C-alpha cells in the first residue's frame, strides 16, 4: 500500500481484474490513490472575466459578485491572467487582496493566495482592473480564479 499522498496525475483505472473473485492489492491501491486524486483535483472555477481594454488614462473597472465555494474547506486559490499594460487588483471580503502587474507586452501571471475560508458557502469578491502609470490602457485577455487542488494535509 502506498503512503498517504495524493498523486500528481490521474493513476488511471486499475488493471488485472480479470478474475472477479480475486481482488489484487495493487488494484485496491490504485483505487485508493485515484479516489484521492479525483477528490483533490476536482476544485471549482470561481470566476472568470471577459477580455477588456480600458479606454482612457486612469481607467478603472470593477467586477463584483459572489463565488460559490466547494463543500470542503478551501485554503488556497489560484489567480491566473494574461494581459498587458496594466494592473489587476483582486480582493475578497475576509480574504485580503493582491495585485498582478503586467508589462508592455502580453504576459501570463499566476498567483497563489493563501486564505482560511470555509467551504460550502458563497464568498463575495471584487476585482478591480486598473492601468499602470505611463500607459494609456490595459489589455486584459482574461483573468480567472480557481480553488487550488487539495493536499494530503487537507484530507483526514
Amino acid at each position: 500500500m502506498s503512503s498517504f499522498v495524493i498523486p500528481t496525475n490521474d493513476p488511471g483505472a486499475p488493471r488485472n481484474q480479470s478474475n472477479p473473485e480475486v481482488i489484487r492489492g495493487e488494484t485496491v491501491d490504485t483505487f485508493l490513490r485515484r479516489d484521492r486524486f479525483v477528490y483533490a483535483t476536482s476544485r471549482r472555477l470561481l470566476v472568470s472575466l471577459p477580455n477588456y481594454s480600458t479606454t482612457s488614462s486612469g481607467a478603472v473597472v470593477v467586477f463584483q459578485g459572489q463565488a460559490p465555494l466547494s463543500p470542503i474547506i478551501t485554503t488556497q486559490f489560484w489567480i491566473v491572467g494574461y494581459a498587458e499594460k496594466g494592473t489587476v487588483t483582486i480582493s475578497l471580503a475576509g480574504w485580503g487582496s493582491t495585485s498582478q502587474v503586467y508589462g508592455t507586452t502580453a504576459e501570463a501571471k499566476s498567483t497563489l493566495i493563501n486564505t482560511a475560508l470555509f467551504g460550502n458557502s458563497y464568498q463575495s469578491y471584487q476585482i478591480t482592473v486598473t492601468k499602470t502609470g505611463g500607459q494609456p490602457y490595459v489589455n486584459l485577455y482574461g483573468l480567472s480564479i480557481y480553488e487550488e487542488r487539495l493536499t494530503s494535509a487537507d484530507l483526514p
Partner: protein
Amino acid sequence: MAWKKIDDYNSGDTGYPEQPYSAFVAQGLTQNARSYPSELTRGASIPWRRDAPVRWASFGEPTGTIVWVNCGANAVRVIFRLSYQTVDNHESAANRIGVWYIQNVGSLARVLVDAPANLSHDPFDIVFPCYNGALSGYQAFFIGFQSDPLDSLGLVNVDYISDNVMGLGERAGGGYTITTGEKFELVVMDPTYNVIQSGANNAPTQWQIGYILRDPVESKGDAVIFPGGTVYPVAVSTNPQVGKTARGEVFELGSPKLYSISYVVTETQDYTPPDQFNHYHALALSSVNSAQSQAVPTFRPELANIQCDPYHFGRVWTVIPDALTSTFCVQSEVTGVVQVAFTIFPLEDAINDLTDIQILNYDILDSTGTSVFGGEILQNYQFDTFNTTTSFRSSAKQTRALLGVYTVANQWGMRDGLPLSDVQKGNQVVFEFPEATFSAVGAGGDGVYTVKVTTGRAAWVIAFSARLV
C-alpha cells in the same frame, strides 16, 4: 460530508464483525465514490462590470441573456444565485417588481419566481429543478426578467407613433418631465384620447420606453419604444395636421440592476448500493471503478464562464484583430479535449446561401503566447443572420439596445438583454479542440492558457464557456 479514509466509516479499523478486508475496502471506496456528486459539484460566478451593470426592464415578454452551465452527468438541479439591486423599494400590488424567468434553452423547461424589491443587494437564489429529466453536458439557460408596472410617474401627451419612436410632450399638470437618457418605463395609452389605430391591427396600447431624446427647445422628446411601430402600424392621428394629441400615463417598470449570476450544479446520486457483505466483490469494485472513471472528467472544474460585458461579450464582435479571449489553468497535468460553448448571433446580411458563412478561428495559447496546436483552427458555419423583432440597422431612433445590442455608452436602454422570442434565433456553438496536454498551473505564469476565437464577420456573442472533457 467530506472525503474520508475508509476506516472512518466503521467503529474500528477492521470494519464490521466477520467482514473480510476486501469487503471493508470496497465499502469505503464505494462510500467515497457515492459522495462525488454532492461533494464535487461544479459552480462559478459570472459578473458584469460593477460600474455598468445590466439593468433589465421588459414589459411585453421576458428579456435577458443566456448562460452556459456544464451540467456534467445527470444534473438534477441547478441553483442560480442572482446578485441584483433595485433603485427603490417600489413594488406592484403583487408585492414584487416582476418575475425572474429561467428557461433551459434545449428542453424549454422553465421556472418563474417573483422578484422582490432588493435595495440592499441581498443574494437571491432560484432553484432550477431538472423535472423534464436530468441534464448532462453543456446546457444553455435563458435567464430573464419580466417587469411589473410600478408607480405612476405622470401623464404625457403622445403626438405620434412611427416605427420605433413615440413623440412625447409634457402635459400641463401631468407631472411627468421629459429628460434625455435611458428609461425603464411604460406608457399606457388612454383609449378615450384620440387613439386611432391604422388598419385592422390590434395595436398594443402599452409601450415600453427604452430611451428618450429631449428636444433642445420645446418640452417634447422622442421616445424609443418597444415593440416597434413597424410591427404594429399605429397612428395617433390619421392626419397630423389636425393636431390631435393622445394622452398616456407613464409608469415605472420593475428594473433590477444585475451584478452577477452564480450557479451550482447538483448531480444525481448513485443509489445502487454495493453488495457490502458479500464475499464476492467484483461487482462492487467494478462500480467503484466506473464511478471513479466517470468522475475524472465529469468533476473537472469549468475552465472559464464569461457573460455579457458591454465592451466585448454581449456586444458586436468585429473582425480581426478583435478577438474573444479567456484565460484558464488546470490543477494537474492532463491530456484532454478543451470544449468551448457560446451563443452567437451573426449580424451581417446574408449574401446567398453558399457564401453566407461565418468563419471562426479557434486557438489556445500557452503562457508564452504560443499556439498549443501550431496555429489557428478554422471552422466554417452556415448561420442565419440575426433578424431581430424589429429592424437591426443602427440609427438614432431605434431600439437597438432593447433588442440586446448595446452600442454606445449612455445612449440606449437595455444592455445585454434579449427578448425571449429572439433567444431561439441564437446559434448555440460547441467546439472541441484536438486533444492536447496541459501542464498544471505553477508559479510565474506557468500553466496559464488562453482560449482565443476570432471571426471574419461581425457577430454578437452573449455567453462563452470552456471546459475539459
